[in-house]
């Protein structure tokens, strides 16, 4: 009761503030229109006839995947500004002067952001249940898909909120939020698959078979919401060897893993919220001061290409001599050596890993590479 009393004022303020925005209205409208269009376009008609259960399953899969993807991309847009925005508006400190506990502030922010997205999903749910009348999928499977969807949303909201807490600017929080949400909702599965492929190539087939194979499969299944939804729709939740030997169904494994990730992020978030921002350890403050002092005196390190473009711009080369372009590459973060290194070496490492897996799987390198890129598995 005490918890509710503490949380309600801020939660109400956040949720009402969000629901009154024009952005919220348009999002609800668009999601409703899109959700209604799917059953309307796929409803059996006398002229075309109905192609049976497989078609319904395809429609269900498209519906849930579209909802999941849209929700994943909407979450950072709503949660990134939750705490970083308060900092930008200089209202963050004033929140701490109220009677609200830090945990209440964090809970209210998380609940309002997640609540709105869940509300949008609830508005779209009649479309899913209309499709249920076409047959092909049990009610239990639809509910399991919604459970996975909700878990993915809660996990993504808490991850974004954590990055909002760690960032001083909303734009930075949004970028970090998008990166980590995509990583935890699909990127990790791709990375695991890539590691699997590399282990296959480097260590050989025998080394990765056996119990390690099943645990690896379970990790892949439980690290992305798309996989359990796909299994639930097309295979009725069965995963063959994995379920049989480990006794875990994909959606149960996903709920457990996403719950764990969300819990860890939430605890980290609470820890950050409880520690006042002014009371950092002395060594940390000293390090920050040292870093700030060197940042002021140290010249910006730019890549070779940036320096070349600046020089050509100074010489009056068309396009490159544009004053705004010159300002962008001289002053903004994407002109720095660090950004160039990150955006060049990380993708290159990824591409080379994919190429290695492609080569190890035999056959023509280009064909194997294309197969892996477009199907996500080794030929």
């Amino acid at each position, binding site marked *: 009761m005490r918890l509710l009393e503490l949380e309600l004022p801020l939660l109400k303020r956040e949720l009402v503030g969000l629901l009154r925005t024009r952005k919220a209205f348009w999002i609800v409208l668009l999601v409703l229109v899109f959700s209604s269009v799917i059953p309307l376009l796929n409803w059996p008609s006398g002229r075309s006839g109905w192609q049976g259960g497989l078609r319904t399953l395809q429609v269900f899969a498209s519906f849930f995947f579209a909802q999941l993807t849209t929700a994943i991309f*909407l979450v950072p847009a709503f949660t990134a500004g939750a705490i970083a925005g308060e900092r930008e508006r200089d209202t963050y400190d004033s929140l701490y002067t109220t009677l609200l506990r830090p945990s209440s502030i964090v809970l209210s922010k998380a609940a309002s952001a997640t609540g709105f997205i869940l509300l949008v999903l609830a508005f779209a749910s009649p479309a899913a249940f209309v499709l249920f009348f076409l047959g092909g999928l049990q009610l239990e499977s639809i509910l399991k898909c919604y459970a996975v969807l909700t878990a993915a949303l809660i996990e993504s909201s808490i991850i974004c909120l954590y990055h909002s807490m760690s960032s001083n600017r909303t734009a930075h929080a949004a970028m970090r939020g*998008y990166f980590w949400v995509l990583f935890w909702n699909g990127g990790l599965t791709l990375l695991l698959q890539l590691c699997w492929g590399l282990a296959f190539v480097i260590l050989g087939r025998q080394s990765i078979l056996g119990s390690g194979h099943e645990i690896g499969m379970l990790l892949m299944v439980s690290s992305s919401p798309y996989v359990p939804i796909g299994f639930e729709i097309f295979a009725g939740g069965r995963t063959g060897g994995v379920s049989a030997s480990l006794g875990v169904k994909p959606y149960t494994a996903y709920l457990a893993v996403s719950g764990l990730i969300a819990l860890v992020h939430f605890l980290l978030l609470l820890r950050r919220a409880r520690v006042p921002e002014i009371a950092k350890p002395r060594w940390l403050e000293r390090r920050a001061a040292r870093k700030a002092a060197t940042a002021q005196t140290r010249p910006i390190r730019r890549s070779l290409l940036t320096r070349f473009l600046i020089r050509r711009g100074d010489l009056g080369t068309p396009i490159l001599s*544009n004053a705004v*372009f010159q300002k962008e590459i001289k002053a903004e973060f*994407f002109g720095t050596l660090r950004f160039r290194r990150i955006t060049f070496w990380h993708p*290159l490492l990824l591409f080379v890993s994919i190429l290695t897996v492609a080569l190890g799987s035999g056959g023509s390198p*280009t064909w194997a590479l*294309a197969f892996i890129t477009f199907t996500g598995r080794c030929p």
Partner: protein
Amino acid sequence: MIFLVVPSVAASGFPREREQGNLDFLRGTWLTSGEILTGKFWGAVYSGLGVYSAALWTLPAIAVLEVASGPWENDRSFLGHPDRSLSGLMFSAVLVLTVSLIFAAALSTTVSTFARRSLSSLGLSFFLLLSLLVLWPMFLVLTGSDGSMEEVLGVTHPFVALGYAFFQSQEKVLGYLIAFFACYSVAISLLWGIAHESARITHERDE
């Protein structure tokens, strides 16, 4: 990766200037709104060059390995010329990557001319790209029952266009690539026009 990196940098182009109070300063100079827009657009393209160049470095490696692995199969030749197949494939990949980079930069810059806040701009840019890459193919798969859906996707979706370069029969690849290039050129020109008009209107309104 281009579709992730470019919007996250370019979508906040104009709102960032507005939030930091630099936009009024920029308008106070002799620069026209077109020049400001051009600068922002090339800045956006430049932000994605890291990923783009990583892909370009990988392509020659694939080509070398492909040549070393043996003769190119006839059924995967490009334009009916077995000796040009690999160069054709490389050309297709470079074309799709370049068009995707310029399109992502144009879309993000255009959205940033409308939005007042970085977060809205970022969210809208990602949503529009998501619509193109995920929702549009899903919509076509759900509605299209005949073969026309594949053709539309091959022309409008960069991943499918790239996939066709790998898997489609040689006669169709050039047609798809030309149509893809034309479609995206029109889209980029349209976005450029919208961005230019939006920047001009905002400039005049603020004055």
